[in-house]
């Protein structure tokens, strides 16, 4: 039976499917769910869109290939209609934490502001370990934050804090940066958000009721994916515990440069594409092996990369669409993944 607008009204009127009607005209209707997402029973969300860009890994050299891909993501977001309410940049703006790289990145991201789209940003390890975040903080302020938007509580954390691996080894700031710039860094250890942010998070959500819709951004995943490549956050358990009182939490992360999805209790986790290059899948089993990306053509700088847009409907169902420039996203994921 073809569901037209008219008989959908009829259907909902007779069957009294209020929850269904509420999102009847959202892009989520008709979506084939590869993983079932849950709406909130009672929600006061005013539907909206936001975009997530990240892992730009800008180098100092002018007209670098990664400048082009970040610029393309930003100009695609600027052209989006309806306009996204805001953008979150999810870490690794620079590749070696250099001032020139960060300044170049800020200049490109500021085009969003000029187009009337505000952005929030969290750091990645590539932004941080040349000067331990000093210049990043000068440019962008606090590396962790929260804000409310249209009935949703948004949280961003700095998840890439490691214990000092450099002092005992007598490493220079540059050597420290080069070490952690390798995904398979042998000396850096596992990273996390640390005690201070855990206490801050507890306080931040203390007075929120369990039916508050929560979206949390971290550079690295809040589940144990592949610690060898820091596809993890050391204190993810503590974070998930603090957020366990909420009915539903959407967690979006970068760092993995790939399509990846997981669920833990009340949380749904999804990885963002990089604008720089794709990482391979690690040698572990994926929790949702049907949610993966295609192999990329390494000869095409626009393949294997992209960004994401997310629509949040009035029942706090999310729809994340990966925005790609080549044939990266499998056909059954092209219409989006429900969160």
């Amino acid at each position: 039976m073809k569901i037209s607008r008219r008989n959908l009204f009829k259907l909902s009127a007779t069957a009294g499917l209020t929850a269904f009607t509420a999102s009847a005209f959202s892009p989520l209707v008709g979506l084939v769910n590869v993983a079932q997402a849950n709406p909130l029973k009672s929600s006061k969300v005013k539907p909206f869109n936001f975009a997530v860009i990240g892992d730009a890994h800008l180098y100092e050299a002018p007209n670098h290939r990664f400048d082009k891909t970040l610029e393309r993501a930003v100009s695609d977001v600027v052209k989006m209609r309806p306009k996204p309410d805001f953008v979150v940049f999810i870490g690794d703006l620079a590749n070696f934490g250099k001032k020139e790289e960060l300044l170049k990145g800020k200049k490109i991201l500021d085009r969003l502001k000029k187009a009337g789209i505000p952005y929030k940003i969290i750091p990645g390890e590539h932004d941080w370990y040349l000067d331990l975040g000093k210049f990043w903080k000068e440019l962008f302020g606090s590396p962790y934050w929260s804000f409310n938007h249209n009935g949703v509580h948004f949280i961003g954390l700095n998840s890439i804090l490691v214990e000092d691996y450099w002092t005992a080894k007598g490493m220079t700031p540059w050597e420290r940066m080069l070490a952690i710039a390798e995904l398979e860094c042998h000396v850096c250890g596992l990273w996390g958000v640390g005690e201070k942010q855990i206490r801050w998070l507890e306080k931040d959500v203390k007075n929120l009721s369990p039916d508050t819709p929560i979206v949390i951004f971290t550079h690295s995943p809040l589940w144990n994916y592949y610690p060898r490549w820091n596809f993890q956050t050391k204190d993810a358990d503590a974070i998930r515990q603090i957020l366990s009182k909420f009915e539903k939490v959407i967690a979006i992360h970068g760092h993995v440069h790939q399509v990846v999805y997981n669920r833990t209790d009340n949380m749904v986790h999804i990885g963002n594409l990089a604008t720089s290059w794709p990482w391979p899948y690690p040698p572990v089993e994926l929790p949702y092996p049907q949610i993966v990306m295609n192999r990329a053509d390494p000869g095409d700088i626009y393949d294997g990369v992209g960004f994401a847009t997310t629509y949040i409907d009035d029942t706090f169902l999310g729809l994340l669409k990966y925005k790609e420039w080549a044939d990266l996203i499998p056909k059954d994921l092209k219409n989006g993944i429900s969160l």
Partner: protein
Amino acid sequence: MKNKRYILTGVFALAISSLIFVNSSLGKPPLSEEDLKLMNEELINLVKKGDELWHSEKLGTNGLSCANCHPDAANSNPHTFPKFQENVGKVATLREMINWCIQIPLEGKTLPEDSEEMKALEAYSIYMYRGFKLKPGDNQKAYPPVEVKEGAGYP
């Protein structure tokens, strides 16, 4: 009786010939533990050199290294070569593919295929896929390497 003698002679002949065969196959004395250790050290030195090059930006001109896309040599799939590579436009060896990567994504200058650098890069890639079954021609899949728990991924 006569038959029994024939059988005995046959068994004797077989025993002699197998002795000769065994002797000739052991023409060289077996390798000592120490020899094997030295040989393996030589190999690991080459793998280590390859690991360093793999993670170095000096092969290219745009700051990228092999490790940008291939951490722990992941997705280098050495066990699937030779195979027809669309981007190379012919059946390519692993070395030809490495040169393609240096030339295109890294925007660098190709290495002579018999150079020490090329051998080292190849050794690192193959070593990280040790134990994998050979699948020449496999173009369908990208394979992750061995799972590394700590260190460089080789002894």
